[in-house]
């Protein structure tokens, strides 16, 4: 007997580990909100853009509360490129991207994908320069020059000439750009291509481009972190990331020649200027629009969902959430420095959400 007992010690330890692991896994599922009578629990998984992540993580927490813990939405900020890849592979229930998918990308997807815009955000040029705070002015040529690696010092005449009174040091500029496929990069390079012929010719636009200068960092999180730790650093991030990290950012000269601060208002103004030309599928670029108050580098961010859903329960949860997001969800946007959708865009989004179906049956119930 005792021999057997000894033999069991090792296997006993492993068995205990296994059981404990399973219990933990089991507990995990039930831990929050074990109330009875709640509707069936649904988990939706999504992944993609880091640009709207601060807002989305807030949304998913609020929405979980609102549905009495019935709907859990797990979102991972892996970059727009990853979001597009994952929704194409159908490894997630929805994707997210700030770069509208290209026609050939849409064709690769196994079903018809909708772009549902959620909010708009501004991409700001943020920097780390002792003694220089928000309000440093940059013209389109300057921004292009810096990111092309042609403007190498902070006291370059191109910067000093438009910033009288600002003490710019004789310091090297360290460009930080995204290393992952990024919708923020798409907006930023779209802007640079539209204002700088040199950029358009040498680099072009896209979710990932061949950067002529600088170091890479992953996600908006990574770029903000890198700029924060690098004296002389300059990078481009979503406005919320700069503000939350107390990083200064530049005022950019717009099409009308005015230097504009990136704010919710100036982003909304940009969207309003571009709203008239919104196509039905909502894949649109709003960089460098006209209008004295328009901030020139901004864009929509989208959730990517299949028109034909494979799973009724999940599909229903998804459309309910989308409806909530473009209506009630918008009121969280301002606090986190995103611009809510203009009314005409909400109408277009509603129209799309209504078309989402399971085996031909509309999933949204009003």
């Amino acid at each position: 007997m005792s021999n057997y007992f000894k033999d069991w010690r090792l296997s006993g330890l492993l068995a205990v580990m296994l059981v404990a692991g399973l219990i933990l896994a089991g507990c995990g599922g039930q831990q929050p909100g074990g109330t009875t009578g709640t509707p069936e629990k649904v988990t939706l998984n999504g992944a993609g853009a880091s640009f709207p992540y601060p807002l989305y993580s807030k949304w998913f927490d609020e929405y979980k509360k609102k549905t009495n813990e019935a709907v859990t939405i797990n979102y991972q900020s892996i970059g727009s490129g990853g979001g597009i890849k994952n929704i194409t592979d159908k490894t997630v229930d929805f994707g997210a991207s700030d770069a509208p998918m290209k026609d050939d990308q849409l064709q690769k997807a196994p079903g018809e994908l909708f772009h549902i815009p959620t909010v708009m955000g501004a991409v700001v040029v943020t920097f780390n320069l002792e003694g220089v705070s928000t309000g440093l002015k940059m013209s389109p040529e300057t921004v292009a020059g810096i990111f092309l690696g042609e403007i190498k010092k902070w006291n370059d005449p191109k910067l000093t000439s438009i910033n009288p009174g600002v003490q710019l040091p004789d310091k090297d500029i360290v460009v930080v750009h995204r290393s992952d496929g990024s919708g923020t990069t798409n907006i930023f390079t779209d802007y640079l291509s539209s204002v700088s012929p040199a950029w358009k010719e040498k680099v072009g636009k896209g979710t990932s481009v061949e950067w002529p200068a600088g170091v890479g960092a992953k996600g908006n999180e990574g770029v903000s972190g890198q700029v924060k730790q690098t004296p002389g650093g300059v990078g481009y991030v979503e406005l919320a990331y700069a503000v939350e990290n107390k990083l200064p950012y530049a005022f950019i000269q717009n099409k009308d020649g005015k230097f504009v601060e990136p704010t919710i208002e100036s982003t909304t103004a940009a969207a309003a200027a571009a709203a008239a030309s919104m196509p039905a599928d909502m894949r649109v670029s709003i960089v460098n629009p006209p209008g004295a108050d328009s901030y020139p580098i901004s864009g929509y961010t989208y959730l990517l969902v299949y028109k034909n859903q494979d799973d009724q329960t999940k599909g229903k949860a998804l459309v309910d959430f989308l409806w909530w997001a473009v209506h009630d969800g918008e009121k969280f946007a301002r606090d986190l420095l995103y611009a809510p959708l203009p009314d005409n865009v909400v109408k277009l989004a509603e129209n799309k959400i209504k078309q989402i179906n399971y085996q031909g049956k509309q999933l949204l119930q009003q």
Partner: protein
Amino acid sequence: MDRMYLRRARNLVMSVMCMASAVVVIIPLVMILFYVAADGLRAINWGFFTNLPKPVGETGGGMANAIAGTFTMVTLATGLSLPVGLMAGIYLSEFGRGRLREAVRFLTDVLNGVPSIITGIFVYVLVVVAMGRYSALAGSVALGIIMIPIITRSTEEMLRMVPKSLREASLALGATEQQTVVKIVLRSASGGIVTGVMLAVARAAGETAPVLFTALNNRYWNQGLDQPIASLAVFIYTYGISPFEDWHSQAWGAALVLVVMVLFLNITARLVVRARQGR
């Protein structure tokens, strides 16, 4: 005399250098433990073990889900890899013959050398895309694949260290080959085998790249083994590269928890083995 003097001097120099190298080996470990403890302790409080992470930009929150997630995945990975690794190790040491054994041994070493991110991509294609979602299961498979060669090779090494005379004695007493392997060889090598398994567990617990591709991550509790799951390693990664101070300190906290978890497992395993061998 001169020669003797030279020899002694050389002896001294080499001894000192060896000792100095030994100290150099320890320094990084001590520094890692020191930094992790110093920065990690500040982030750790009761809520760290019981709360879920907060939305971006809000302070507080914990990593209860990540702790449970790492535990779940490593346990499952051990369950998947231990039988295979152990038996492959027994094969290599006890029963394997000729070319096949050499091939298995060589391929095990190759598998051991495959960068873990490659394993992640492999499992992504094989399991995640096929299943249609990221899952705790896929993460465990990836970790299991990483653990198998470690367990196999350490088991083999340990079994080969058992003296041949012991095997012969067992067989001479009329024990079958199976009885010899199970009751004599495995038994006397158990201490080393457990250590090998623990090394594999520790390695798996700290892996980030393969988990990132397979289990994704989860801000909430895992909802089942076929759903994405949080893990400490991925949290350390995402929080570490974030720009938020609060997240940095939480990443240190998670690192400390991970180190303590692995240390605790190691010590438990050793105690169990010692208790067994004591009798």
